[in-house]
């Protein structure tokens, strides 16, 4: 058996897990590990400029590639900085392995320099965590971390490694297989229940598929497409599920919820059978709970039993992997379900769509953010482009107006709503794919991880950031407009911004400031042809609001439409 030190064991494990890129930021307690990364050639080590960005980059990589994202950081401040990134991944069920250095075992608990109870801090925002106390357990812990991160409902797993362990020498044999006695995710759904559900579907008049991020993480998108096409059942998507169905599919009702389409929210409110697949009934989706889908029976398929009936009681719960459950369901569906049965239902949704389609008032005097997004899609013209967003109004407009046609082409912080996510996640996506990566950002959030422009420059990742610059913390400004009598407390950024063009140049990329449609088109076309990163600072209408909008706590069918 090979004798290795702890740091070498980590390298061997990363290699065995097929890791291609590691995002990291060094420091005292992680020095042994970084010393080993210096020597090996099996994967790339990317130095981000902030540990929060390190976790977001690993997250962006994981979302775009479907693989586990990895980051390595040091103890104390290094670790506390990563927490926002870890929590972001946790809320959206993104598989990450986060390795942090820790002070030596003998110093733990002494308030040593850069000591922090990392395990205690990460516990509420990870799927699982480990403090490695002995070199003997390290190989198993590494193997378990990757296994736990990617299996079942995916999520971040944190390994805290004291400095003496990363130096200690021990026997190394990486386990091929593991079985954790206390952890056995259920993939297969209950057969009787599945049979029952198909019967329900065949008897219902207004069924609706409610697709969540679980469809993408279980790899069920193709099956869902097949199901929708065969059954003629309309489907709506959460923010996390955009791309599961093609944007031009007539049965795709697009995004539901607070900023969902009128027809979509009305369909949810009128349906008699909601089939939730890997979706978790977030409050941004349901609106006022007592008014949510009052006439519907609820079928809920989810791999995480604790998601089921957490918010909305499921009449027909199925614990299982969406893909596996659909595979079991399809043959029965093909026997029992008839497309014609839902014709009237489809017609009535269509009517809703024609009363209040998703629209905006374009202008030639001032650029409208929605126009910029639609136009970008035309110019980029590729189903493979990866679109990243930060958090705010621009995020909702991207969700509404960008035509997503493939899963894993929208990377966005859904559950936690983390400003500062966009740029580093785009960086991570740049390592996962050779497609164009476009990051739509607000002018506020862009400054939250702006230092990562340096990482983009250094690694020749040509991310294009389109700043929809309204000189406001726009989404908060919108709430202040609607609910706080226009008191713009701490949201007006007019004359309080850096020069984004010079900023791009200072970091070694291209910067463009655009005020007109033509300027925008030219800038984006030019940016797409470059091998360096670009920032396009688009001056947009300052007071544009995201509509429709369901005011927080309101019923889904009561929308502000203008």
């Amino acid at each position, binding site marked *: 058996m090979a004798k290795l030190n702890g740091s070498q064991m980590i390298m061997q494990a990363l290699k065995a897990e097929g890791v291609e890129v590691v995002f990291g930021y060094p420091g005292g307690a992680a020095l042994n590990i970084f010393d080993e990364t210096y020597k090996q050639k099996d994967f790339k080590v990317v130095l981000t400029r902030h540990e929060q960005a390190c976790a977001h980059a690993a997250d962006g990589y994981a979302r775009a590639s479907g693989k586990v994202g990895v980051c390595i950081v040091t103890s104390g401040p290094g670790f506390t900085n990563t927490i926002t990134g870890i929590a972001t991944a946790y809320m959206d069920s993104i598989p990450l392995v986060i390795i942090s250095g820790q002070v030596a075992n003998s110093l733990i608990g002494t308030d040593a320099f850069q000591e922090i109870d990392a395990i205690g801090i990460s516990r509420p925002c990870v*799927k699982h965590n480990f403090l490695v106390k002995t070199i003997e357990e390290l190989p198993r812990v590494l193997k378990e971390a990757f296994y*736990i991160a990617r299996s079942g409902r995916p999520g971040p797993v944190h390994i805290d490694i004291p400095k003496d362990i990363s130096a200690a020498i021990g026997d190394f044999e990486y386990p091929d297989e593991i079985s954790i006695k206390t952890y056995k995710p259920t993939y297969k759904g209950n057969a009787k229940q599945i049979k029952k559900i198909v019967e329900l579907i065949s008897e219902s008049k207004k069924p609706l598929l409610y697709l969540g991020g679980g469809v993408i993480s279980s790899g069920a998108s193709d099956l869902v497409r097949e199901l929708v096409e065969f059954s003629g059942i309309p489907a709506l998507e959460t923010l996390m599920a955009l791309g599961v169905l093609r944007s031009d599919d007539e049965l795709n009702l697009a995004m539901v919820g607070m900023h969902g389409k009128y027809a979509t929210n009305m369909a949810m409110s009128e349906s008699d059978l909601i089939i939730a697949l890997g979706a978790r009934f977030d409050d941004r989706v349901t609106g006022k709970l007592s008014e949510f889908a009052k006439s519907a029976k609820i079928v809920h398929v989810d791999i995480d039993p604790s998601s089921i009936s*957490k918010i909305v009681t499921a009449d027909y719960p199925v614990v299982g992997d969406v893909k596996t459950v659909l595979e079991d369901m399809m043959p029965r569906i093909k026997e029992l379900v008839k497309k014609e049965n839902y014709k009237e239902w489809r017609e009535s949704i269509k009517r809703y769509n024609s009363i209040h389609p998703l629209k905006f008032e374009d202008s030639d005097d001032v650029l409208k953010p929605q126009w910029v997004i639609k136009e970008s899609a035309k110019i980029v013209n590729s189903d493979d482009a990866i679109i990243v967003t930060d958090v705010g109004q621009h995020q909702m407009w991207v969700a509404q107006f960008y035509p997503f046609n493939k899963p894993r082409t929208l990377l966005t912080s859904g559950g936690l709503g983390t400003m500062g996510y966009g740029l580093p996640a785009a960086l991570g996506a740049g390592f996962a794919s050779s497609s164009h990566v476009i990051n739509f950002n607000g002018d506020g959030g862009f400054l939250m991880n702006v230092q990562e422009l340096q990482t983009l420059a250094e690694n020749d990742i040509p991310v294009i950031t389109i700043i929809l610059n309204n000189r406001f913390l726009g989404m908060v400004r919108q709430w202040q407009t609607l609910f706080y009598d226009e008191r713009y407390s701490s949201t007006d950024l007019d004359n309080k911004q850096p020069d984004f063009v010079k900023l791009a140049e200072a970091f070694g990329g291209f910067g463009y400031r655009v005020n007109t449609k033509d300027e925008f088109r030219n800038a984006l076309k030019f940016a797409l042809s470059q091998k360096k990163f670009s920032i396009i600072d688009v001056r947009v209408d300052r007071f544009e609001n995201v509509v429709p909008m369901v005011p927080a706590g309101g019923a889904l069918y009561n929308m502000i439409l203008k």
Partner: protein
Amino acid sequence: MDRRLISVIVLNEHGVLSRIVGLFSGRGYNIDSLTVAPIPESEFSRVSIVTSGDERAFEQIIKQLYKLIPVYKIIEADEFVDKELVLVKIPLAENLSGLDAVLKSYNGSIANSDDKHLIIMASDDSVRIDNFIKTMKKYSPTDIVRSGSVIIEVRE
């Protein structure tokens, strides 16, 4: 708000208790009492938890507990034997008449004594422990320590 009993069988590893407690506190659920000890000749510990809450909250607790990686099994029985232990320190200077009878009816005993104090011990279900403590009040106890419930399901 019903009183609920659950027994959680967990892998006997460091940090597991704080995972369980963190789950309750992070969600604002109450723990009325909690006792833990290793299960003999196994790699597991048994955690006995008494909590209170409505059916929905309770269901969530169970599901969330299951989600913790080191949780092996959760026992929610319709009938538990539920016992607590209480230790009561009373000054010898008190008039101790009637103490014998009280101890007898609560299956109590004297756990320790010296020239100043008696330490009384009793073990029973939590309602009877409440009553026992009330009764002991007349002996002006200087200290009362009660354990959490230890519970075992009546049927398999």
